[in-house]
């Protein structure tokens, strides 16, 4: 370690940002290519159904297929908006 590195370390190093971004995108792309073909369409339809009842974002639905032994598990994660927001929206639409 040199004494000048003290001043340099203030800035977040870009290599660790790169690694983090890559890990996320690569994991997502692997899940897509290893997953069954119907997954994107299924995701869209589920999103539409949820949107009938709750105003959620496009990214609010996360879907992953894991295999455990002979079993394949479809994991579905929906992030609902804050209570206040959803009730407001529901009130407006009724």
């Amino acid at each position, binding site marked *: 370690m*040199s004494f*000048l*590195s003290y001043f340099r370390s203030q800035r977040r190093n*870009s*290599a*660790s940002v*790169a690694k983090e971004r*890559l890990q996320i995108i*690569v994991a997502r*792309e692997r899940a897509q290519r290893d997953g069954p073909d119907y997954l994107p369409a299924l995701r869209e339809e589920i999103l539409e159904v949820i949107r009938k009842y709750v105003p959620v974002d496009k990214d609010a639905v996360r879907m992953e297929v894991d295999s455990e032994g002979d079993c394949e598990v479809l994991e579905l994660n929906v992030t609902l908006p804050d209570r206040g927001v959803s009730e407001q929206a529901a009130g407006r639409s009724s």
Partner: protein
Amino acid sequence: MSKIVVITSGKGGVGKTTTSAAFAAGLAKRGFKTAVVDFDVGLRNLDLIMGCERRVVYDFVNVINGDANLNQAMIKDKRLEGLHILPASQTRDKDALTQEGVENVLDELRETFDYIICDSPAGIERGAMLAAYYCDEAIVVTNPEVSSVRDSDRMLGLLASKTRRAEQGSEPIREHLLLTRYSPQRVQKGEMLSVDDVRDILAIELLGVIPESQAVLQASNAGIPVVLEENTDAGQAYDDAVARFLGEEREHRFLVEKRGILGRLFGG
């Protein structure tokens, strides 16, 4: 038993052709009969890197179409015994390579050669997929840079599903990672993904790390495979990689920058 090895990457400009030339020359130097085949139809360049561009008469597509036989098209390297080059065609016809044609040529090469190195074009189009289709082993050339790593991962996915071995369900191809244009100095400063970062993400066996080096450009200027420049860092790093490919254990070199006392005091 002959082996077909594809040099691939997805992304362009990462060093596939440099690596193909270096590996072919490195294997031939060790006494293996080696053919190196340029699959980049329309953008022939392996001949330049190998320094035999003025001796091209017939090419890969001529052989596939039956205009020439393999012996007429193969260029014998003047430096190394047993090293032959099959140049790509400069045609603009994208469908010039046919699956059957490629298979026939590779089968014929298998009769004579120990190693057949396939220099893949960039991208994931027909040429790249055909270069990979019949391979037994793959060397994935990657730069420590986000787009290159992502493309390499995509290519690994394709190698696992779109090759003959994958389709026939036979033994999976062996995949090797070759990290090129590596700058230890920039890694130390936190400006470049480290070899461990790239390994963590791609999760395949590391064949070698080639340092960013002036020797690579100088060798290509002269038409000499860089592995034959034995006094250069890149040449030695390629030689190590070839040795590891053949099963030898060699420690990884050129991963840290050599610096003097002043550099250590004031460097990052």
